[in-house]
């Protein structure tokens, strides 16, 4: 009788328990992401992060009136790095700098916050799809896979994109279940924003949308439904405007090149690398369980959304095969996809678990297992963040920038295409081909005469800077040209500057 009483008191469904759990989870997810907050953004895809950092600084310095003239001009000039996507996050950060001063970690806070908000939307979605218990576990997976912790605190548009994708999925599912105009507009808003922030979101958003239309609503019914047309219109409108403007002005044309390599589809290594990256993102067990979840999903209610998402992700991979297998952050969206796909599986298992285990001990064990899993994953992420301190890099590049004079004409084989030099050294530079660049061009079928290219690229330049010695040593032609034709301007164990003005 005592046992029954305890079970009644402790396990009677209490909505506030789930809310408290969710708040704690979101707070913990945010807390792990602001660990080592002020370290430089060189831990994950530094090129892309510095691209955004330079852009944001350039925007900010337009408002800074008390900086030295050369610095202000340099910031604005160096911040003009072109556009890959609309600079949404950069604009937010730059405007924040106006209140706080320039602190790179502000971008980390924003990205982490966006990811956490995405977690909230994911919880709401999974709860509607399955149950509170499944929602808690799915949200924990989303928030605490180590790759996700690292990759969601970066100065890149991807965390915001993923958060907006999740919100769009939630509103899509709500629309599927209610057919209300509120959810039509919200889906269009979130989906359109997701695609605007980073256009590759189109694969997941449209994939889910098409899945719901074909699987849950039916094609004929959807064609006759004005809500569907409004949703489609709202999805494409923001990006269409931006894309047309970008194409006309020429700034976006180049990004479509060097990305589509269909011959990679025939290479088995493509699929192995894909699987490796996917497993790195979520863990093999998670995405595999997610696939099983799709099979367990209810045919008309759950499966269309999930299947549409997975097909969208797969289409994404086939469209950008080279980057998909070389750029790990392309797999950030698979984290919420896998977490969401767990829902049907979790629903089945948790239901059976509670049927078989009415007592408190098994439930306590389950909770402890979940907490243990979260703690271990958080520890892995923390260890990875703690292992390297990049703060000294700022001083290193400042030294080089001072040596070059900040306004010299420089070409270099340096880290991250010269972005580190630009950001901390306040010195612009053009980039000589890295080994990866050469490989990519050969893959695209281009034949490069390196010596001729070198002659063309150094024309008019004052210095050739080398900091990536591994790439330098892998290009004996260029190494020989430099050593035999140009004196050394400055040299240490970590950098080498050739004087191109006095051959």
């Amino acid at each position, binding site marked *: 009788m005592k046992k029954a009483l305890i079970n009644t008191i402790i396990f009677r469904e209490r909505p506030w328990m789930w809310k408290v759990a969710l708040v704690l989870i979101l707070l913990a997810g945010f807390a792990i992401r602001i660990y080592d907050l002020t370290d430089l953004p060189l831990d994950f895809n530094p090129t892309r992060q510095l691209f955004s950092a330079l852009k944001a600084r350039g925007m900010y310095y337009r408002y800074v009136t008390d900086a030295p003239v050369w610095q202000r001009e340099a910031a604005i000039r160096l911040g003009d790095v072109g556009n890959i996507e609309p600079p949404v996050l950069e604009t937010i950060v730059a405007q924040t700098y106006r209140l706080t001063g320039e602190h790179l970690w502000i971008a980390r806070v924003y990205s982490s916050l966006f990811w956490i908000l995405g977690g909230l939307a994911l919880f709401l979605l999974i709860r509607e799809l399955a149950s509170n218990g499944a929602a808690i576990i799915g949200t924990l997976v989303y928030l605490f896979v180590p790759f996700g912790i690292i990759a969601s605190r970066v100065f890149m548009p991807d965390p915001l994109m993923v958060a907006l994708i999740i919100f769009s999925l939630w509103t899509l599912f709500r629309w599927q279940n209610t057919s209300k105009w509120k959810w039509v507009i919200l889906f269009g808003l979130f989906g359109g924003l997701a695609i605007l922030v980073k256009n590759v979101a189109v694969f997941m958003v449209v994939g889910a949308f098409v899945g719901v239309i074909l699987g849950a609503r039916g094609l004929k019914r959807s064609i006759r439904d004005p809500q569907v047309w409004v949703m489609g219109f709202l999805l494409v409108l923001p990006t269409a405007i931006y894309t047309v403007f970008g194409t006309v002005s020429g700034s976006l044309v180049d990004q479509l090149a060097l990305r589509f390599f269909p011959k990679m589809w025939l290479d088995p290594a493509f699929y192995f690398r894909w699987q490796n990256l996917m497993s790195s993102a979520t863990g093999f*067990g998670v995405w595999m369980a997610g696939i099983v979840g799709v099979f367990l999903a209810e045919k008309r209610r759950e499966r269309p959304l999930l299947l549409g998402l997975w097909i969208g992700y797969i289409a994404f991979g086939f469209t950008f095969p080279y980057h998909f297998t070389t750029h790990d952050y392309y797999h950030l969206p698979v984290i919420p996809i896998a977490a969401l796909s767990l829902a049907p599986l979790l629903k*089945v298992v948790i239901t059976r*678990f509670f049927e*078989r285990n009415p007592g408190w001990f098994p439930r306590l064990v389950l909770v402890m297992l979940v907490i243990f*899993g979260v703690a271990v994953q958080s520890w892995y992420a923390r260890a990875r963040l703690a292992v390297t301190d990049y703060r000294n890099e700022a001083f290193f590049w400042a030294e080089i920038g001072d040596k070059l004079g900040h306004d010299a004409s420089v070409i270099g084989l340096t880290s991250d295409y010269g972005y580190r030099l630009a950001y901390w050294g306040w010195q612009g530079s053009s980039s000589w081909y890295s080994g990866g660049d050469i490989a990519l061009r050969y893959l695209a079928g281009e034949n490069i005469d390196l010596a001729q290219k070198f002659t063309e690229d150094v024309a008019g330049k004052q210095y050739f800077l080398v900091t990536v010695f591994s790439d330098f040593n892998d290009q004996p032609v260029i190494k020989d040209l430099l050593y035999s034709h140009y004196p050394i301007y400055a040299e240490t164990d970590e950098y080498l500057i050739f004087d191109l003005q006095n051959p």
Partner: protein
Amino acid sequence: MKTVQNYPDNDQVPHTLFGQSRILLYACLIILFALGIGFRLLNLTNPPLDIHTWRQLASASFARGMYYEMLPHADPQIRQQAIQLAAANVHDEPTITEALVAVSYLVAGGEYLWIFRLWTTLFWVIGGMALFALVRRMTSVDGAIVALGYYLLLPFGNTTTRCFLPEPLMVMWVLLALFAFYRWVETQTWKWTILTGLLAGLAVLTKVFAVFPLAPVIILVNLTTFGLRRTVTNLKFWITVALAGVVPATYYIFLAPESAGGYLGFWVLPFLGRLKDIAFYISWLHHLNGSFNLAIVLMAVASTFLLEKRWRVMCLGLWIGYGLLGVSVPELIYSHMYYNLPLVAIIAISLGSISALVLGRLSEQGRLWRVLFIGIALVGAGYSVFMSRKEVVAVDYRLEPQKWQELAARLPHAPTVGITEEYGMLLNYYGWRSIRAYPYSFDQDMGRMAGHEFDVNADNLDYFNGHVGNSSYFVITMLSELDSQPYLKKILYDHYTIYDQGDWYIIFDLTNPK
């Protein structure tokens, strides 16, 4: 075909995916066993130098010694040498697999080292059959198929069970004992009583660590199923325990008492302090994650709660046993990953219930989805094997034996100490030379973890002399160790002349100091 297993609280026959068609079931079983066996026989004749080399070659040397001892017309000198080389290795457990391999050499007419892979594969397959039968009874045919697939195709298990180790045989006996014990709990007959005791005893005899999974299972299941009083007064329980104890006790207490003491004194007691160090648990988990995937491990533990109470206790007993194994040998559990081989079976058994549940639900889906799922599962299984294949075929070691034979030919016939790969086992097995092993730098690190201190500086020759003993020559093939032990490098170069030198070895003459 039996599709109803232990569902005492459910009168309905559960749906099963693989139980719907005998052809499908047998086809999947054939595919799983074919993949499991086929992989393990891949690159069959490649020398066992990929993983756990020193341990494999120690067994190989032992098997060779036994073979030559039994070989009727062996050259007496070679026989003597083979026996001496085998005796240079210490074995803590009875050399059962080695004896089987030696007998196989006699039957095959020669020392074909790859024969051990046939035996370890056979052990693992027999264990798989027991596992399938056990999980099928505990859950359903669906749970059994998934458990068997995991057991046969996990990359860690694939590569480790190709090794010349006692573990595959131990796991086989453990699984057979678990099945027998399951049947004993169900039937309480004398047949299963005796079989359980004997099989458990054989498991513990093969490797004493089998006691860790078996003891908690037998004790806990009895207590939860029959209660304390009935257990204590049950003669069959005591007969089982007695048989399980007598068989290994015969060896470990009466025939080779020093092996147990040696193990405890060297690997267990000095490292118990590590249990207070959180870094130990983190490293353990990290290695588990690498070989087993932590999400699957946690899923397996949670899955045990879907079982009927007594079988849940059995699974939890297995997990408790694995935990006890880990804390009893804290230095070995992740530095010698083959100690985790029983975990393959434990996870497989544990996954049975969740697999049965999930596949049961899948069986209610339309035919297209069922076919698609099975197709994807088979692709996944094939992929797992293919990824394991890389490790097996990546390196061809067939030229290694000749290299060590050549080195052995250069070594003078005098007592020799050395720092060579795998504690001198490559020289022992392929070069037919036994040398005294000088400690590696990482052995000294491990010693420090156990609380030992070493005064290793070039001015203090005590440590050096203590390990060199009366050796006349010092051979080094791990040249990086000279940089890792700079005091040693200074002593050797300052005090001794070089007898012979090549690209990959140096031999110092200790008989003529400078």
